[in-house]
Protein backbone atom coordinates (compact mmCIF):
# COMPACT_ATOMS: atom_id res chain seq x y z
CA UNK A 1 0.00 0.00 0.00
CA UNK A 2 1.48 3.35 -0.96
CA UNK A 3 0.59 6.84 0.28
CA UNK A 4 -2.21 7.28 -2.23
CA UNK A 5 -3.78 3.91 -1.38
CA UNK A 6 -3.68 4.75 2.35
CA UNK A 7 -5.29 8.12 1.65
CA UNK A 8 -8.07 6.62 -0.50
CA UNK A 9 -8.78 3.84 2.00
CA UNK A 10 -9.14 6.34 4.86
CA UNK A 11 -11.41 8.59 2.77
CA UNK A 12 -13.65 5.62 2.06
CA UNK A 13 -13.64 4.55 5.72
CA UNK A 14 -14.61 8.09 6.80
CA UNK A 15 -17.61 7.96 4.46
CA UNK A 16 -18.55 4.47 5.65
CA UNK A 17 -18.46 5.55 9.30
CA UNK A 18 -20.74 8.51 8.52
CA UNK A 19 -23.06 6.39 6.38
CA UNK A 20 -23.37 3.64 8.92
CA UNK A 21 -24.04 6.04 11.79
CA UNK A 22 -26.27 8.33 9.69
CA UNK A 23 -24.17 11.37 10.53
CA UNK A 24 -22.08 12.38 13.53
CA UNK A 25 -24.65 12.26 16.33
CA UNK A 26 -23.03 10.97 19.54
CA UNK A 27 -20.00 9.84 17.56
CA UNK A 28 -16.54 9.96 19.19
CA UNK A 29 -13.14 8.71 18.04
CA UNK A 30 -10.64 6.87 20.24
CA UNK A 31 -7.21 6.14 18.75
CA UNK A 32 -5.07 3.36 20.17
CA UNK A 33 -1.44 4.38 20.74
CA UNK A 34 0.57 5.00 18.83
CA UNK A 35 -0.34 4.80 15.11
CA UNK A 36 -4.07 4.40 15.79
CA UNK A 37 -3.95 7.94 17.17
CA UNK A 38 -2.60 9.35 13.89
CA UNK A 39 -5.18 7.44 11.85
CA UNK A 40 -7.95 8.70 14.16
CA UNK A 41 -6.71 12.28 13.69
CA UNK A 42 -6.84 11.85 9.93
CA UNK A 43 -10.36 10.44 10.11
CA UNK A 44 -11.40 13.38 12.23
CA UNK A 45 -10.02 15.78 9.62
CA UNK A 46 -11.79 13.94 6.82
CA UNK A 47 -15.09 13.91 8.70
CA UNK A 48 -14.69 17.64 9.39
CA UNK A 49 -14.17 18.22 5.67
CA UNK A 50 -17.22 16.13 4.77
CA UNK A 51 -19.72 17.11 7.47
CA UNK A 52 -18.22 20.27 8.94
CA UNK A 53 -18.29 18.70 12.42
CA UNK A 54 -15.29 18.29 14.74
CA UNK A 55 -15.62 14.94 16.52
CA UNK A 56 -14.34 14.59 20.08
CA UNK A 57 -11.22 12.46 20.13
CA UNK A 58 -9.53 10.41 22.83
CA UNK A 59 -6.20 8.62 23.07
CA UNK A 60 -5.89 5.19 24.61
CA UNK A 61 -2.77 3.49 25.92
CA UNK A 62 -3.60 -0.19 26.41
CA UNK A 63 -0.27 -1.18 27.98
CA UNK A 64 -1.81 -1.56 31.44
CA UNK A 65 -4.49 -3.92 30.05
CA UNK A 66 -2.26 -6.22 28.03
CA UNK A 67 -2.29 -9.96 28.66
CA UNK A 68 1.33 -10.47 27.64
CA UNK A 69 3.20 -7.98 29.82
CA UNK A 70 5.27 -10.61 31.60
CA UNK A 71 5.80 -12.61 28.38
CA UNK A 72 7.02 -9.93 26.03
CA UNK A 73 10.70 -9.28 25.52
CA UNK A 74 10.59 -5.60 26.24
CA UNK A 75 8.22 -3.74 28.46
CA UNK A 76 6.58 -1.02 26.42
CA UNK A 77 6.67 2.47 27.79
CA UNK A 78 3.37 3.66 29.24
CA UNK A 79 2.43 6.98 27.69
CA UNK A 80 -0.97 7.42 29.26
CA UNK A 81 -4.61 7.53 28.28
CA UNK A 82 -6.48 10.77 27.62
CA UNK A 83 -10.21 10.49 27.12
CA UNK A 84 -11.44 14.04 27.77
CA UNK A 85 -15.15 13.24 27.49
CA UNK A 86 -17.67 10.83 29.02
CA UNK A 87 -18.09 7.73 26.86
CA UNK A 88 -21.50 6.90 28.37
CA UNK A 89 -24.14 6.44 25.66
CA UNK A 90 -21.69 7.47 22.94
CA UNK A 91 -21.01 5.65 19.68
CA UNK A 92 -17.31 4.99 20.15
CA UNK A 93 -15.19 4.40 17.05
CA UNK A 94 -11.98 2.64 18.10
CA UNK A 95 -9.14 3.17 15.66
CA UNK A 96 -5.97 1.07 15.24
CA UNK A 97 -3.46 0.46 12.47
CA UNK A 98 -3.31 -3.34 12.20
CA UNK A 99 -5.82 -5.99 13.30
CA UNK A 100 -3.97 -9.26 13.91
CA UNK A 101 -4.67 -11.55 16.88
CA UNK A 102 -7.37 -9.30 18.32
CA UNK A 103 -5.66 -9.12 21.71
CA UNK A 104 -4.98 -5.40 21.49
CA UNK A 105 -8.64 -4.76 20.77
CA UNK A 106 -9.66 -7.02 23.67
CA UNK A 107 -7.47 -4.88 25.94
CA UNK A 108 -8.86 -1.67 24.45
CA UNK A 109 -12.44 -2.83 25.01
CA UNK A 110 -11.66 -3.65 28.66
CA UNK A 111 -10.04 -0.23 29.11
CA UNK A 112 -12.96 1.52 27.43
CA UNK A 113 -15.50 -0.19 29.71
CA UNK A 114 -13.58 1.17 32.71
CA UNK A 115 -14.42 4.66 31.45
CA UNK A 116 -18.17 4.08 31.15
CA UNK A 117 -20.91 2.38 29.15
CA UNK A 118 -20.85 3.36 25.49
CA UNK A 119 -24.00 2.93 23.38
CA UNK A 120 -21.89 0.85 21.01
CA UNK A 121 -18.27 0.36 20.00
CA UNK A 122 -17.14 0.13 16.38
CA UNK A 123 -13.71 -0.73 15.10
CA UNK A 124 -11.70 0.90 12.32
CA UNK A 125 -8.40 -0.64 11.19
CA UNK A 126 -6.18 0.38 8.33
CA UNK A 127 -5.08 -3.21 7.73
CA UNK A 128 -6.69 -6.54 8.65
CA UNK A 129 -4.04 -9.21 8.30
CA UNK A 130 -6.06 -12.16 9.63
CA UNK A 131 -4.98 -14.82 12.18
CA UNK A 132 -7.42 -13.84 14.92
CA UNK A 133 -7.00 -15.55 18.30
CA UNK A 134 -10.17 -14.04 19.76
CA UNK A 135 -13.70 -13.61 18.39
CA UNK A 136 -13.17 -10.00 17.28
CA UNK A 137 -13.80 -8.38 13.89
CA UNK A 138 -13.44 -4.91 12.41
CA UNK A 139 -16.44 -2.87 11.22
CA UNK A 140 -14.41 -0.80 8.77
CA UNK A 141 -11.25 -2.06 7.08
CA UNK A 142 -8.84 -0.01 4.96
CA UNK A 143 -7.40 -3.11 3.33
CA UNK A 144 -7.59 -6.86 3.89
CA UNK A 145 -4.06 -8.16 3.66
CA UNK A 146 -3.70 -11.96 3.61
CA UNK A 147 -0.44 -12.86 5.39
CA UNK A 148 1.37 -15.81 6.86
CA UNK A 149 1.71 -15.84 10.65
CA UNK A 150 5.48 -15.77 10.25
CA UNK A 151 5.36 -12.54 8.22
CA UNK A 152 5.10 -9.14 9.83
CA UNK A 153 3.15 -6.11 8.63
CA UNK A 154 4.72 -2.68 8.95
CA UNK A 155 2.47 0.35 8.83
CA UNK A 156 4.44 3.56 8.37
CA UNK A 157 2.76 6.93 8.72
CA UNK A 158 3.94 10.43 7.97
CA UNK A 159 3.45 11.50 11.61
CA UNK A 160 5.72 8.84 13.09
CA UNK A 161 7.81 7.44 10.24
CA UNK A 162 8.04 10.21 7.65
CA UNK A 163 6.10 8.40 4.91
CA UNK A 164 2.77 6.63 4.34
CA UNK A 165 3.05 2.97 3.40
CA UNK A 166 2.12 -0.55 4.41
CA UNK A 167 4.61 -3.31 3.69
CA UNK A 168 4.77 -7.02 4.43
CA UNK A 169 8.11 -8.24 5.65
CA UNK A 170 9.02 -11.87 5.19
CA UNK A 171 9.90 -14.09 8.10
CA UNK A 172 13.63 -14.05 7.36
CA UNK A 173 13.71 -10.25 7.42
CA UNK A 174 12.45 -10.08 10.95
Amino acid at each position, binding site marked *: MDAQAVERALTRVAHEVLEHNKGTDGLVLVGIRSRGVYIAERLRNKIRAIEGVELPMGIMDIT*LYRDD*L*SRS*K*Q*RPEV*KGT*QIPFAVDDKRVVLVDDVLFTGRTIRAALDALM*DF*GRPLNVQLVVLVDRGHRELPIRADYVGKNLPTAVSESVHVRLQESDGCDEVVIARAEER
Partner: protein
Amino acid sequence: MPFTHRHLLGLEHVSSDDLIHLLDTATSFQEISEREIKKVPTLRGKTVVGLFYEASTRTRTSFEIAAKRMSADFVSLSASTSSATKGETLLDTARNLAAMRPDAIILRHGSSGAPHFLAAHLDCAIVNAGDGAHEHPTQALLDLLTIRERKGRLAELTVAIVGDILHSRVARSNVFALRTLGARVRLVGPPTLLAPELRDWGEVTSDLEEGVRDADVIMMLRLQLERQGKNFFPTVDEYSRYFCLTERAVARAKSDVIIMHPGPINRGVEIASDVADGPYSVIMDQVTNGIAVRMAVLYLLINRSRAEAEGATDSAAPVPAAEVEAAPTRLRRKAG
Protein backbone atom coordinates in the same frame (compact mmCIF):
# COMPACT_ATOMS: atom_id res chain seq x y z
CA MET B 1 16.56 2.73 28.42
CA PRO B 2 14.89 -0.21 30.14
CA PHE B 3 14.37 0.10 33.87
CA THR B 4 16.37 -2.78 35.30
CA HIS B 5 16.27 -2.17 39.04
CA ARG B 6 15.20 -5.14 41.10
CA HIS B 7 14.53 -3.11 44.26
CA LEU B 8 14.02 0.50 45.19
CA LEU B 9 16.26 0.94 48.21
CA GLY B 10 17.33 4.53 47.74
CA LEU B 11 17.92 7.17 45.10
CA GLU B 12 21.64 7.65 45.69
CA HIS B 13 22.57 5.19 42.95
CA VAL B 14 19.65 5.75 40.57
CA SER B 15 20.68 7.35 37.28
CA SER B 16 19.12 10.42 35.78
CA ASP B 17 17.57 8.31 32.97
CA ASP B 18 15.95 5.97 35.47
CA LEU B 19 14.64 8.86 37.58
CA ILE B 20 13.08 10.45 34.49
CA HIS B 21 11.62 7.09 33.46
CA LEU B 22 10.04 6.69 36.91
CA LEU B 23 8.61 10.22 36.79
CA ASP B 24 7.28 9.80 33.23
CA THR B 25 5.60 6.54 34.17
CA ALA B 26 4.09 8.18 37.26
CA THR B 27 2.82 11.08 35.13
CA SER B 28 1.02 8.65 32.83
CA PHE B 29 -0.60 7.00 35.87
CA GLN B 30 -2.02 10.23 37.33
CA GLU B 31 -5.04 10.00 35.05
CA ILE B 32 -6.12 6.66 36.56
CA SER B 33 -6.91 8.30 39.90
CA GLU B 34 -9.15 10.84 38.11
CA ARG B 35 -11.35 8.15 36.62
CA GLU B 36 -14.75 7.04 37.77
CA ILE B 37 -13.35 3.51 38.10
CA LYS B 38 -9.93 4.07 39.67
CA LYS B 39 -8.44 0.73 38.83
CA VAL B 40 -6.46 -0.94 36.06
CA PRO B 41 -5.91 -4.73 35.90
CA THR B 42 -2.14 -4.52 35.40
CA LEU B 43 -0.96 -6.17 38.64
CA ARG B 44 -3.84 -8.60 38.99
CA GLY B 45 -2.74 -11.69 40.89
CA LYS B 46 0.31 -9.96 42.39
CA THR B 47 0.73 -9.63 46.13
CA VAL B 48 2.30 -6.70 47.94
CA VAL B 49 3.14 -6.85 51.64
CA GLY B 50 3.58 -3.68 53.67
CA LEU B 51 5.80 -4.16 56.69
CA PHE B 52 5.82 -1.08 58.89
CA TYR B 53 8.05 -0.99 61.94
CA GLU B 54 7.41 2.72 62.41
CA ALA B 55 4.23 4.75 62.50
CA SER B 56 2.92 5.94 59.16
CA THR B 57 -0.29 7.46 57.84
CA ARG B 58 0.47 8.85 54.40
CA THR B 59 3.07 6.40 53.13
CA ARG B 60 1.22 3.30 54.19
CA THR B 61 -2.18 4.42 52.94
CA SER B 62 -0.61 5.70 49.75
CA PHE B 63 1.15 2.40 49.03
CA GLU B 64 -2.02 0.48 49.78
CA ILE B 65 -4.16 2.64 47.50
CA ALA B 66 -1.48 2.53 44.79
CA ALA B 67 -1.30 -1.28 44.94
CA LYS B 68 -5.07 -1.60 44.84
CA ARG B 69 -5.46 0.81 41.91
CA MET B 70 -3.09 -1.48 40.00
CA SER B 71 -5.25 -4.48 41.10
CA ALA B 72 -2.55 -6.03 43.31
CA ASP B 73 -3.56 -7.57 46.62
CA PHE B 74 -2.17 -5.63 49.55
CA VAL B 75 -1.51 -7.00 53.02
CA SER B 76 -0.09 -4.77 55.65
CA LEU B 77 1.21 -5.37 59.11
CA SER B 78 2.74 -3.15 61.70
CA ALA B 79 5.37 -4.12 64.22
CA SER B 80 3.16 -3.30 67.20
CA THR B 81 0.64 -6.00 66.26
CA SER B 82 3.08 -8.55 64.79
CA SER B 83 5.34 -11.22 66.20
CA ALA B 84 8.06 -8.59 66.45
CA THR B 85 6.57 -7.89 69.87
CA LYS B 86 7.34 -11.52 70.71
CA GLY B 87 10.98 -10.99 69.87
CA GLU B 88 11.05 -12.24 66.28
CA THR B 89 13.94 -10.69 64.35
CA LEU B 90 13.39 -8.65 61.24
CA LEU B 91 14.98 -11.35 59.09
CA ASP B 92 12.82 -14.11 60.54
CA THR B 93 9.66 -12.06 60.08
CA ALA B 94 10.64 -11.21 56.51
CA ARG B 95 11.60 -14.80 55.66
CA ASN B 96 8.21 -16.00 56.86
CA LEU B 97 6.47 -13.37 54.79
CA ALA B 98 8.63 -14.22 51.79
CA ALA B 99 7.63 -17.87 52.16
CA MET B 100 4.07 -16.73 51.40
CA ARG B 101 5.36 -15.67 47.96
CA PRO B 102 4.64 -11.96 47.77
CA ASP B 103 5.87 -10.07 44.69
CA ALA B 104 7.05 -7.07 46.69
CA ILE B 105 7.69 -6.16 50.31
CA ILE B 106 7.44 -2.54 51.32
CA LEU B 107 9.51 -1.92 54.42
CA ARG B 108 9.63 0.96 56.83
CA HIS B 109 12.13 0.48 59.59
CA GLY B 110 13.91 2.57 62.21
CA SER B 111 17.36 1.23 61.30
CA SER B 112 19.23 2.61 58.32
CA GLY B 113 20.03 -0.17 55.86
CA ALA B 114 17.21 -2.52 56.91
CA PRO B 115 15.74 -2.72 53.36
CA HIS B 116 19.22 -3.42 51.92
CA PHE B 117 19.56 -6.20 54.45
CA LEU B 118 16.28 -7.77 53.30
CA ALA B 119 17.18 -7.31 49.62
CA ALA B 120 20.34 -9.31 50.22
CA HIS B 121 18.41 -12.21 51.78
CA LEU B 122 15.06 -12.40 49.97
CA ASP B 123 13.98 -13.03 46.41
CA CYS B 124 11.10 -10.60 46.04
CA ALA B 125 11.31 -6.90 45.21
CA ILE B 126 12.00 -4.67 48.23
CA VAL B 127 10.77 -1.09 48.35
CA ASN B 128 12.21 1.19 50.99
CA ALA B 129 9.41 3.18 52.61
CA GLY B 130 11.84 4.96 54.94
CA ASP B 131 14.81 3.47 56.77
CA GLY B 132 16.07 5.30 59.84
CA ALA B 133 17.84 8.51 58.90
CA HIS B 134 18.96 7.07 55.55
CA GLU B 135 16.52 7.31 52.61
CA HIS B 136 12.84 7.58 51.73
CA PRO B 137 12.93 7.23 47.96
CA THR B 138 9.22 7.30 47.11
CA GLN B 139 8.77 10.52 49.10
CA ALA B 140 11.55 12.18 47.11
CA LEU B 141 10.08 10.89 43.84
CA LEU B 142 6.69 12.40 44.63
CA ASP B 143 8.43 15.64 45.57
CA LEU B 144 10.25 15.63 42.22
CA LEU B 145 7.02 14.90 40.37
CA THR B 146 5.30 17.80 42.15
CA ILE B 147 8.16 20.19 41.37
CA ARG B 148 8.31 19.11 37.72
CA GLU B 149 4.54 19.50 37.42
CA ARG B 150 4.66 23.06 38.77
CA LYS B 151 7.94 24.27 37.28
CA GLY B 152 8.11 22.22 34.09
CA ARG B 153 11.67 21.14 34.85
CA LEU B 154 14.10 20.25 37.64
CA ALA B 155 17.46 21.30 36.23
CA GLU B 156 18.79 24.70 37.30
CA LEU B 157 16.13 25.18 39.99
CA THR B 158 17.19 26.41 43.42
CA VAL B 159 15.72 24.18 46.09
CA ALA B 160 16.07 25.18 49.75
CA ILE B 161 15.65 22.28 52.16
CA VAL B 162 14.96 23.61 55.64
CA GLY B 163 14.99 21.98 59.04
CA ASP B 164 16.24 18.85 60.67
CA ILE B 165 18.55 17.79 57.83
CA LEU B 166 20.60 15.51 60.06
CA HIS B 167 17.75 13.12 60.88
CA SER B 168 15.87 13.45 57.63
CA ARG B 169 15.71 10.54 55.23
CA VAL B 170 13.42 12.69 53.08
CA ALA B 171 16.19 15.29 52.75
CA ARG B 172 18.81 12.70 51.84
CA SER B 173 16.75 11.08 49.10
CA ASN B 174 15.80 14.49 47.74
CA VAL B 175 19.36 15.78 47.76
CA PHE B 176 20.64 12.73 45.87
CA ALA B 177 17.93 12.90 43.20
CA LEU B 178 17.88 16.69 42.84
CA ARG B 179 21.65 16.75 42.34
CA THR B 180 21.44 13.90 39.80
CA LEU B 181 18.85 15.90 37.87
CA GLY B 182 20.84 19.13 37.95
CA ALA B 183 19.03 21.23 40.57
CA ARG B 184 20.90 23.48 43.03
CA VAL B 185 20.40 22.41 46.62
CA ARG B 186 20.62 24.68 49.68
CA LEU B 187 20.50 23.21 53.15
CA VAL B 188 19.17 25.37 55.97
CA GLY B 189 19.02 24.48 59.65
CA PRO B 190 20.63 24.98 63.03
CA PRO B 191 24.38 24.14 62.95
CA THR B 192 23.83 21.12 65.20
CA LEU B 193 21.42 19.61 62.65
CA LEU B 194 23.77 20.24 59.72
CA ALA B 195 26.54 17.65 59.81
CA PRO B 196 29.85 18.91 58.38
CA GLU B 197 29.80 16.34 55.57
CA LEU B 198 26.58 17.89 54.23
CA ARG B 199 28.72 20.68 52.80
CA ASP B 200 29.49 18.33 49.93
CA TRP B 201 25.80 18.32 49.00
CA GLY B 202 25.25 22.02 48.42
CA GLU B 203 25.27 25.44 50.03
CA VAL B 204 24.77 25.30 53.77
CA THR B 205 23.46 28.09 55.98
CA SER B 206 21.84 28.57 59.36
CA ASP B 207 20.08 31.79 58.41
CA LEU B 208 16.54 31.01 57.23
CA GLU B 209 15.94 34.25 55.32
CA GLU B 210 19.34 33.93 53.63
CA GLY B 211 18.70 30.28 52.83
CA VAL B 212 15.37 30.80 51.07
CA ARG B 213 16.46 33.93 49.16
CA ASP B 214 15.45 33.62 45.49
CA ALA B 215 14.53 29.96 45.93
CA ASP B 216 12.21 28.32 43.38
CA VAL B 217 11.22 25.66 45.86
CA ILE B 218 11.23 25.60 49.67
CA MET B 219 11.08 22.12 51.07
CA MET B 220 10.30 22.10 54.78
CA LEU B 221 11.18 19.11 56.93
CA ARG B 222 9.36 17.91 59.98
CA LEU B 223 11.26 18.46 63.19
CA GLN B 224 11.67 14.81 64.19
CA LEU B 225 10.93 15.19 67.85
CA GLU B 226 11.12 11.40 68.32
CA ARG B 227 14.71 11.32 67.08
CA GLN B 228 16.01 14.23 69.19
CA GLY B 229 17.68 11.94 71.69
CA LYS B 230 20.53 14.33 72.44
CA ASN B 231 20.33 18.06 72.78
CA PHE B 232 20.58 19.49 69.29
CA PHE B 233 18.92 22.78 70.23
CA PRO B 234 17.84 24.26 73.56
CA THR B 235 14.05 24.26 73.16
CA VAL B 236 11.44 23.73 70.48
CA ASP B 237 10.34 27.35 71.03
CA GLU B 238 13.79 28.60 70.26
CA TYR B 239 14.02 26.40 67.17
CA SER B 240 10.76 27.73 65.83
CA ARG B 241 11.78 31.35 66.50
CA TYR B 242 14.70 30.91 64.09
CA PHE B 243 13.50 28.27 61.63
CA CYS B 244 9.71 28.44 61.44
CA LEU B 245 8.77 29.31 57.86
CA THR B 246 6.63 32.45 58.05
CA GLU B 247 5.20 34.80 55.41
CA ARG B 248 8.14 37.10 56.11
CA ALA B 249 10.67 34.46 55.11
CA VAL B 250 8.62 33.32 52.11
CA ALA B 251 8.73 36.92 50.81
CA ARG B 252 12.50 36.50 50.32
CA ALA B 253 12.02 33.65 47.85
CA LYS B 254 11.01 34.01 44.19
CA SER B 255 7.48 35.29 43.69
CA ASP B 256 6.38 31.97 42.15
CA VAL B 257 7.98 29.87 44.90
CA ILE B 258 6.29 26.63 45.90
CA ILE B 259 6.32 25.37 49.49
CA MET B 260 6.50 21.67 50.20
CA HIS B 261 6.32 19.53 53.32
CA PRO B 262 6.40 15.73 53.53
CA GLY B 263 4.02 15.69 56.50
CA PRO B 264 3.03 15.28 59.19
CA ILE B 265 3.19 19.00 59.90
CA ASN B 266 4.08 20.41 63.30
CA ARG B 267 2.04 23.59 62.84
CA GLY B 268 3.75 26.61 64.34
CA VAL B 269 6.98 24.67 64.94
CA GLU B 270 8.63 24.38 61.51
CA ILE B 271 5.92 25.99 59.40
CA ALA B 272 3.36 28.69 60.17
CA SER B 273 -0.25 27.67 59.60
CA ASP B 274 -0.91 30.47 57.12
CA VAL B 275 2.09 29.34 55.05
CA ALA B 276 1.13 25.65 55.15
CA ASP B 277 -2.38 26.55 53.95
CA GLY B 278 -1.25 29.42 51.70
CA PRO B 279 -1.61 29.73 47.93
CA TYR B 280 2.00 28.69 47.21
CA SER B 281 1.66 25.54 49.30
CA VAL B 282 1.63 22.33 47.22
CA ILE B 283 1.49 20.02 50.22
CA MET B 284 -1.78 18.39 49.16
CA ASP B 285 -0.51 17.94 45.57
CA GLN B 286 2.41 16.03 47.05
CA VAL B 287 0.02 13.62 48.74
CA THR B 288 -1.99 13.16 45.54
CA ASN B 289 1.16 12.59 43.49
CA GLY B 290 2.34 10.00 46.02
CA ILE B 291 -0.24 7.56 44.66
CA ALA B 292 0.92 7.87 41.03
CA VAL B 293 4.58 7.58 42.05
CA ARG B 294 3.99 4.45 44.09
CA MET B 295 1.88 2.93 41.30
CA ALA B 296 4.82 3.55 38.96
CA VAL B 297 7.33 2.02 41.38
CA LEU B 298 5.22 -1.10 41.91
CA TYR B 299 4.56 -1.41 38.18
CA LEU B 300 8.21 -1.10 37.20
CA LEU B 301 9.50 -3.41 39.94
CA ILE B 302 6.84 -6.12 39.85
CA ASN B 303 5.79 -6.31 36.25
CA ARG B 304 9.19 -7.07 34.90
CA SER B 305 9.30 -8.86 31.59
CA ARG B 306 11.13 -12.15 31.19
CA ALA B 307 14.10 -10.67 29.41
CA GLU B 308 14.49 -8.03 32.08
CA ALA B 309 14.14 -10.54 34.88
CA GLU B 310 16.97 -12.58 33.41
CA GLY B 311 19.35 -9.73 32.76
CA ALA B 312 18.44 -7.62 35.78
CA THR B 313 21.04 -5.69 37.63
CA ASP B 314 20.74 -5.51 41.34
CA SER B 315 20.47 -1.98 42.60
CA ALA B 316 21.35 -3.05 46.11
CA ALA B 317 24.26 -0.93 47.16
CA PRO B 318 26.89 -2.65 49.23
CA VAL B 319 25.37 -3.05 52.65
CA PRO B 320 27.27 -1.23 55.37
CA ALA B 321 28.22 -3.98 57.79
CA ALA B 322 27.53 -1.98 60.92
CA GLU B 323 24.03 -1.16 59.74
CA VAL B 324 23.25 -4.77 58.97
CA GLU B 325 24.14 -5.71 62.51
CA ALA B 326 21.74 -3.10 63.78
CA ALA B 327 18.97 -4.10 61.44
CA PRO B 328 17.20 -6.84 63.39
CA THR B 329 14.79 -5.18 65.72
CA ARG B 330 15.98 -4.95 69.23
CA LEU B 331 12.73 -5.39 71.01
CA ARG B 332 12.20 -6.54 74.51
CA ARG B 333 11.59 -10.23 74.59
CA LYS B 334 8.29 -11.28 75.95
CA ALA B 335 7.06 -14.77 76.56
CA GLY B 336 5.67 -15.83 73.15
